[in-house]
């Protein structure tokens, strides 16, 4: 249990992706079955343990200590799980000869009935060290919140076993904790687990951005063009009556889109974009947002913002794997197949006809719908390949929006950047003339060169007004301030931000040392974009 607890403690404080991968790989290497598999399941959210409510946890602890002292402690720490793990009074007679393993803890928790759950939990806490207690409480209260996605965990498995992550993703949904067969294969001690379950995920094909000079080397006749829809990439798989909707990283998202999942009556694997509205009246990104990150979806929500799928590829029909066929043939099969589906839930991503690159460029600049974020180019003769092969698929995005904003706060970075102020909050002007004030509209931490980072860091240090821990507030008024040209992909309405807007994918595109702060943009400029 202690090794798992230590892993959680390290992961939550390690900001860098590579650092997290190293920690995970080391853990998989040094910990035996079934503990490592259970840890993996806990991280990917595939471990089912009956939840304990915070109130129950609190009741358990105040049975064991003075409520006033507990109150002081909780007030200071602010996090219930952490407070309880620290103050839990371990009676010296209860300290066991050895601490329980993760496997033993999980087995006891899973075997506990609803009524004796709290007692089982209390006994486990009695037998564990402080950080192990924290890990146990995290397991039973649900949600580790350690900043590791299922995708990252799979990446670590791939590096651990020196296999392609696509192989793991493809197998994943047929496996169950503690994944002993998977680990045995990754360690070279057993054959690759067979795909046994139905409707498994197929690793998706991804595109590369068009870079400078790329187009000159490509022949327009070799490529099909489609609009690039700014929805959610999904894979709809139906096999033997099993229906699954996967995200591009292989997470099962069927539960979040029951309306679409229920309409999947076919035997095939389709690739496409999930959008909101109806095929004939596609909704905007704000509409789509209503359906994102929700655990449960009300019938009203499903009615108001129905989900549908705009299909652009087909990987399998009736058990026939089509991935080795060239796109030209897959497209014909897809067109015929989508014609047989419920037209309110499935339609075809139309091809965009073009003569040459300049013609396509004109179309790209004036897309027919706001949810289009550019065009896709796909080679007619390419098979469907997992991952991001260079050449067959390109994305050619619309140029980003830009805004001139003023630097307001800077925060120190991590790792290589721990001595640099590298995360910037910026704002634009709002309020009546003569009484303008800056309102923060976003935060960005990349887009600049190392040399520019040094310059901004110096500027921040020289112009600090106030400090709050790792954050500095920077002098920013009508006459003083650093203007940043910020590029972003789009704007959403936000009730969480004072400005009422939230930027998508903001990054610093230029430093405007030359521009006076008073000439930075106003909030109305952004609001106009919102209403467009």
């Amino acid at each position, binding site marked *: 249990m202690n090794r798992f607890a230590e892993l959680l403690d390290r992961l939550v404080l390690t900001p860098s992706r590579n650092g997290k991968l190293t920690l995970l790989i080391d853990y998989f290497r040094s910990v035996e079955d079934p503990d490592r598999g259970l840890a993996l399941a806990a991280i990917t959210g595939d471990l089912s343990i009956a939840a304990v409510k915070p109130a129950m946890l609190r009741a358990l602890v105040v049975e064991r200590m003075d409520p006033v002292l507990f109150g002081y402690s909780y007030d200071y720490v602010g996090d219930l799980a952490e407070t309880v793990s620290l103050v839990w009074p371990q009676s010296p007679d209860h300290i066991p000869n050895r601490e329980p393993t993760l496997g033993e803890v999980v087995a006891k928790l899973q075997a506990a009935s609803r009524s004796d759950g709290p007692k089982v939990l209390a006994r486990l806490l009695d037998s564990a060290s402080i950080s192990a207690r924290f890990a146990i409480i995290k397991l039973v209260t649900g949600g580790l919140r350690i900043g590791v996605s299922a995708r990252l965990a799979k990446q670590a498995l791939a590096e651990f076993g020196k296999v392609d992550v696509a192989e793991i993703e493809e197998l994943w949904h047929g496996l169950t904790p503690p994944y002993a067969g998977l680990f045995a294969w990754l360690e070279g001690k057993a054959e690759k687990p067979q795909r046994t379950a139905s409707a498994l995920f197929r690793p998706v094909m991804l595109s590369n951005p068009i870079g400078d000079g790329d187009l000159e080397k490509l022949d327009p006749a070799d490529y099909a063009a489609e609009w690039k829809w700014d929805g959610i990439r999904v894979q709809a798989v139906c096999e033997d009556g099993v229906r699954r909707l996967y995200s591009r990283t292989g997470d099962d998202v069927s539960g979040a889109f029951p309306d679409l999942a229920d309409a999947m009556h076919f035997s095939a694997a389709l690739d496409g974009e999930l959008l909101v509205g109806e095929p004939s009246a596609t909704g905007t990104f704000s509409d789509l947002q209503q359906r994102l990150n929700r655990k449960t979806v009300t019938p009203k929500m499903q009615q108001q913002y129905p989900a549908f799928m705009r299909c652009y590829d087909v990987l399998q029909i009736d058990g026939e794997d089509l991935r080795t066929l060239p796109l030209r043939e897959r497209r014909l099969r897809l067109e015929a197949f989508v014609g047989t589906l419920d037209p309110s839930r499935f339609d075809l991503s139309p091809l965009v006809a073009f003569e040459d690159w300049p013609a396509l460029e004109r179309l790209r600049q004036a897309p027919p719908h706001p949810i289009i974020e550019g065009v896709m180019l796909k080679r007619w003769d390419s098979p469907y390949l997992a991952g991001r092969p260079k050449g067959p698929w390109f994305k050619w995005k619309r140029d980003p929006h830009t805004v001139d904003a003023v630097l307001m706060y800077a925060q120190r970075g991590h*790792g290589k950047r721990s001595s640099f102020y590298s995360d910037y909050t910026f704002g634009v002007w709002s309020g009546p003339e003569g009484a303008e004030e800056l309102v923060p509209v976003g935060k960005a931490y990349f887009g600049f060169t190392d040399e520019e980072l040094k310059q901004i860091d110096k500027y921040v240090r020289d112009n600090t007004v106030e400090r709050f821990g790792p954050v500095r507030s920077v002098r920013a008024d009508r006459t003083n301030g650093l203007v940043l040209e910020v590029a972003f992909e789009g704007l959403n309405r936000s009730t969480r931000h004072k400005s009422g807007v939230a930027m998508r994918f903001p990054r610093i595109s230029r430093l405007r040392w030359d521009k006076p702060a008073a000439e930075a943009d106003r909030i109305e400029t952004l609001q106009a974009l919102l209403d467009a």
Partner: protein
Amino acid sequence: MRASDLLHPRPEGLYCPPGDFFIDPVRPVNRALITHGHSDHARSGHRSVLATQQTLDIMELRYGEGFAETVQTAALGKTMALNGVSVTFHPAGHVLGSAQIAVERQGLRIVASGDYKRQKDATCEPFEPVRCDVFITEATFGLPVFRHPPDTQEIARLLKSAAQFPERSHLVGAYALGKAQRVMRLLRDAGYDRPIYIHGALTRLSEYYQSQGIDLGQLDPATVDSGGKDDFAGAIVVGPPSAFADRWARRFPDPISCFASGWMRIRQRAKQGGVELPLIISDHADWDELTATVKETGAEEIWVTHGREEALVRWCELEGIAARPLHLVGYEDEGD
């Protein structure tokens, strides 16, 4: 005689009227008794200072010769008479030279703990419990949430991380007096025999520790002259915590920031400070040590100073021991 007639707080610090002296005064006074060398307890500008030899040495290193008009050495365990008040220094286990001060008159004994800890520490004399009527305890970590793990376990985590990330350097933030040397000594005791790189602010105090027979092994300055960026790959570097937010830290390759402090027990503290590897190593007593020590002294009355007084006072009430906060000002909360 009442306890408050023997010692009571004044704006300058804890004062003994019959002996006419202050303990750890925060402003310049005529006569000061100093428990240990941390700058919030040992200030310059007093006329006369009484402290252990090591505390006097440390004050001289920090403030220069002539930091006081006259100095007098207190030998541990030897009782001295000051204007009819008996004064004895006992080891406090906090940092090198640290002492508790027992003040006694007409059968009434008060012990001022200064800062103390009970965990074993190879860089200073261990704490010695002294029976007394009134025990004045610090309460820096006076909440039940503060439970320091064994320091060897924390150092093992540091060494494990150094092995996991051999291409990066580990920057260990540790206070220049006491904590830094303890961390280095713990590394040596764990078998780490490579040079330890230190920030310039640690040099003189570390040399002093070595001169007092505390072996810290080879310490090299963490300057760019001593090597290029790559030479610090895999290195352990010790420096004051403030240096790591500074441009000084840029000479190290992709550093992992570590901080050796009792505050690192609280995850949010580590997170806010951008600490990737918190090391819970403290020179102060944790909750269990505080409460055990209070009982061990057999004191009928507890005065609680700097820190989280309310929780310890509450605990004393539950135990049927009279207790009150002393509200001394000027001691830093963060000094660990």
